Every structure is written in C-alpha cells, then in structure tokens.
C-alpha cells in the first residue's frame, strides 16, 4: 500500500458541512481513523463522536493527525489548504470540485515549497482497502489485493475497481488524483510509489483526454517502472474543443487526444485497454497471484 494505512490519523476540514458530515460518517463506518474535524466557530462541539476544532493547528496537536481531507466550498479551499500545509500536515486530500485554477496553482506551489503532498482537488480521494478510506469512494467496491490504481476520474475508478473485485483481484491502494488541469500528486510520483511498494504487483492507470500528462507518464514508465502497467484512457469518442465534464478533460489545439495517449502507452510497452472491463482482463494476465473469487 502507499500513502495511507490503518494507522493513518486524519482530520476533516469542513466536517460539519453537508458533504463533510455525511462522508465523515461513511469513512468512520469503513474503519478510517478520523480523529477530529475542523469548522471555524464550531470548536468544542462533536459530530459522529469525533471532536470539532476551530483551527487545524489545534486539531492536529490535540489528535496527532498527520493528514487532512478537505470538504470546504471552492472559494475557501486555498485558505483551508494553506492552513493544513502550514500546520504541518504531511498529506492533504482536496475533494472539493470547482476551485478556480489560479487558486489551485497557488495552493500546489505552497505545498511544494513546504514539502506537503496534495491529492486532488476535484477528486474522490484514496483508499487502502480494509485499512483506510479518505474521501468519497464507495468502500464496499474495493477489496485488499495486489493492484495499485491511479485515476483522473471518480466513478470510472469505481467501475474498474468493481470489475477487478468481481474478478477476485483486490487493490493495494487506489488514488483518485482528480479531474482538474492543475493538481497535486501526478502520475510520476504515484507510479514510483507503487513501483516501490511490495504489496503492489500490477499498476492500473486510468487517464482521460486533455493535457499531456499521460504522454509524460508513458515516457516515465518506460524509463523507471519495472512492474506491469495497464492503462485505460477515457474519451476516445470525445470531440475536440469541448470540455467533457472535468475541467481538465478537453482536447485543444490538437493536443490531449485519447489516440495520442494510447499510442504513447503502447510505445512504452504498457498494456492498453479500450474498455473498463478490458482493464480487468489485462490485469489478470499480469498477476502472479492466483485469482481468488
């Protein structure tokens, strides 16, 4: 597994908001160590049995948390993220969708300067099945196992994970890196982490149209990654110039096509699937462990 495990202690920023509260409940039900929440002005209250604090600094020093997951509204995320970073969080997971990208750019630059890792924004979070779920992923779909997943999409991750789990292929860790054009952790860092992770045998990379991150990931894999990688790119039928839901999913100026990305992966020796279920088949072929259903 990478990034998180059963000992990871987490605080929730925006814990008393609608999204924050309901997903805190779900994360706790999954067994995630949510040890505190932060909502300015609600310090001293408690929700779902965990204490609420006014500031991240307070929450961290009272609980020993090292990770924060952010559910605050888009225009407050730069502030909330900076608070988590400056309070010393090692990992900040930003679930919120709709953050103006200039804010995201500032947040990510700040995190880099301080050595904090950011997952997201506009992402479903991440999960180490059976140990720790951070974000909004449906835990029931995931099972422990040898497949490491990196994905720009939420529900598409669930689709592939469901297929894997149904086929008896569990996951080491699944990381939804988010659908925005500017984001925290990218393919290279996570590919490296999975490559170094003894629990991961196969890496699944789920990309989509827009940008050139997949082309760069393909080159990176060719140079650095020794484990088998299965890639899938969504948006093979997307028209150019149109934003396909995600802020980052747009083919513009001839760049960012699924064709180009799939070609890059093929050229790098990566197994390329054309549907989510083909991913499962490709993973099966790579897996050393016997498939247990």
């Amino acid at each position, binding site marked *: 597994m990478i990034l998180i495990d059963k000992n990871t202690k987490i605080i929730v920023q925006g814990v008393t908001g609608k*999204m924050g509260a309901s997903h805190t409940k779900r994360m706790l039900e999954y067994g995630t160590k949510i040890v505190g929440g932060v909502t300015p002005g609600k310090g001293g209250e408690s929700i779902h049995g965990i204490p609420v604090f006014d500031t991240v600094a307070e929450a961290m020093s009272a609980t020993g948390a090292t990770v924060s997951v952010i559910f605050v509204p*888009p*225009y407050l995320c730069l502030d909330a993220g900076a608070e988590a970073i400056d309070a010393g969080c090692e990992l900040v997971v930003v679930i919120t*969708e*709709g*953050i*103006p*990208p*200039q804010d995201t*750019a500032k947040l*990510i*630059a700040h995190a880099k300067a301080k050595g904090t890792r950011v997952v997201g924004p506009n992402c*479903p979070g991440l999960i180490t099945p059976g140990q720790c779920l951070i974000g*909004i*992923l*449906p835990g029931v779909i995931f099972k422990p196992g040898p497949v490491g997943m990196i*994905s*720009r*999409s*939420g*529900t*598409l*991750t*669930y*689709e592939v994970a*469901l297929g894997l789990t149904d086929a008896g292929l569990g996951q080491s860790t699944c990381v939804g890196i988010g*659908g925005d*054009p*500017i*984001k925290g952790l990218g393919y290279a860092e996570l590919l490296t982490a999975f490559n170094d992770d003894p629990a991961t045998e196969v890496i699944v990379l*789920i990309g*989509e*149209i*827009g*940008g*050139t*991150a997949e082309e*760069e990931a393909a080159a990176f894999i060719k140079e650095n990654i020794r484990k088998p990688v299965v890639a*899938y790119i*969504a*948006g*093979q*039928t*997307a*028209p150019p110039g*149109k*934003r*396909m*839901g*995600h*802020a*980052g*999913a747009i083919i*513009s*100026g001839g*760049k960012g096509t699924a064709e180009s990305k799939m070609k890059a992966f093929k050229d790098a020796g990566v197994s390329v699937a*054309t*549907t*989510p*279920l083909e991913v499962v088949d490709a993973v099966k072929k790579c897996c050393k462990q016997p498939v247990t259903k």
Partner: protein
Amino acid sequence: MNLYEYEAKRIFAEYGITTSPGVRITKPEELRKIHFGYPLTLKCQVLVGGRGKAGGIKFAKDLKEGESLAAQLLALEIKGCKTESLLIEPKASIKRELYLAVTLDRGRGCPIFIGSAEGGIEIESSENVITVPVPGKFQPYIARDLAKKLGFSGALFNKIADCATKLYKLFEELDLDLAEINPLVITEGDDVLALDGKIIVNDDAIGRQKRFTGWQEKHLTDMSVREGRAKLAGLNLVELDGNIGIICNGAGLTMATMDMVKKFGGRPANFLDAGGGSDAEKTLFALEIVNENPDIEVILLNILGGITACDEVAKALVEFRKKHPNRKMSVRLRGNNQDVAAKMLADSGLKLIADVEAAVKDAVAQANSKTPVGVK
C-alpha cells in the same frame, strides 16, 4: 465563459492596453452615427474561432458599402454560432503583427505567457512560439524577459513589456483561463495596439468575479440551446450526432460509456455528466433534456453510485416513465441503495442491468432495432 471581442477590448482598455476606437452596432443604420472616417473594418461578434476564414471580417470604403456589408454580416452564422453584433473600427495601419497571451500551463501548474513574432495566426500551428512561465508572484521583469525573447529592443521593448504586464494583471485579477491578443499590432507610428482579443473567464470563478454576474446567459451562443440550458442548470452536456442519449454520473464514466457505445457499434448522441450526488430533480432534468433531442432512439443511463444515491435516481426514472412511457431505455444502476431503487422501479417496465457492458450492448441493440427491446 468566452467573451465577445468588444467585451474583451473594453477590459483591455480599462487595464490600459491600447485598442482601436471601436463601436458596437446591431443594425446597419447605426453606421451613420459613426464619427471616424472610412475605410472601416466590420467584424462579426461571435464566440467561435475562425471568423476571418469564415468571412466574418469585411472592409467598407464608404457608408453605402458599409451598410450593405453590415446587413450581410449581421445575418452571418459561423460554425453554427450566430453573430451577436458587429464591431466597427477604423482600419489600422499595421507594420507588424504579434501574438500575445496569458493562460494556465497544466504541466508546470502555473500561469504562462505565450508569445509569437507572428500574429493573426492560430498559435497551435505557429513555429515561433515563445513561452515564459510565471511560477510565483508576477513581477514586470517577467514581461520584459518575454519582450526580449520576442526580439524587441528600444522603445518597443518597453511598450511590449508594458502591454504584457497589463495583460497579466487582468488575467490574474479577473480569474481568466485565457487572455489573448491576436494580433497585437505594431502600427506605422510604433504604437502597440490590441487589434483582436479573446478572453475566457474561468467558469468556476464567475461566482466571485462580481462584474460577470449574470453574464453567462448571454454567452452561451457557442453551444447548442440545450447545451446552454444544461450549463445554466449546472450540468455538463455536449451534443454529438448519434442516436443514443447517454446520462452517467462522473465525467470519466460518461466518456467511458460513450467509448463503449461506439466500440459496440452504436453512435452516442451526447455526453451528459449528471454529476456526483445529483438528486431526483436534477436527474429528471437530465433525462428530459436528453429526451428533447429529436435524433435519439434510446437513452442509456449508467449510474455507479458513490455519492449518488440510486433511490434518488429511481425516483426521477419513475417520474420520467410516467411522461414518456414509450421512450426506449437501458438502465444500469449500481451502488448506494441499489436494492431500494430496484424495488421502486419494479413496476416501471424498466429492467435494470447490473453489468456495464451488457447495458451498453442492450442500448446499442435497441438503437439499431425498430422495436423497443429494453421494455418488457
């Protein structure tokens, strides 16, 4: 949100970037009130690119020709996008043309200047593109580095750098995705002038950019009417030319579903991401707007509930079926509360298909068949 050229230029002028003295008209006879002399340039105000090639820019040598051209241009549609108005400007004295823009660079994760010593071109196809990233707080020296890389010196060096500094300022202050001057013109008198401009406001930032409050409705002309309505309702709809209407939750899943439809022999009629956590009302709106497309044969609904509660989707489906009992549909509904949803839909005449590929294949089969196979 794309702005019209005349709006972009008003913003440029407000930030001190010199633009042509332009007047916007919506009727040919308004040309009579224009006080600057002929020849004049008449430019269609449209939200799509390629205006020049499409005949959207004309020159008039006198009022008579002007009125005739204006009438013609006001009626022009470019790539399906209606001309909103005309921008009338005196013909500029051009010595040189450049390209200058600020946008966000995905790879570097920061704003970036893009410049080219060629102007009036499509930047993607230009070979002389200069980029200068702005990794931290902007300082004017970065604009000077750009002016230097573009090969300027002397008074023009300072004028280009000054223009780039102002362009950056408005890019940042107005939360833009793109601030572009194309071409940036150097006149015979060595003045620097924004001859055409494009501004894309970041959609997510409109809520905090008060000057743009209420602008969205007037700026949807680069979309179909239905796409525009969906956008105002907070949904992402992209229409295509197929016959299978697609509604999913999540952008990636929607794209993957489109891809599967194509792979299994069908033709997607649209992309519609109903978003995470959509309630019954929003889902019903999604169903209705897709259903309005006269080209569709079948609606494929693929919901994998993470945030989205399947029972909310089922509620919308029950409602929709009441109004449109004969609409062919393939429904895949899996995740939170899926059993409740199945129970709710038991009497709807819809069969639920658990497997995603089976659902897609069912939709394709229905679209290609003359009888509604998906309805029991």
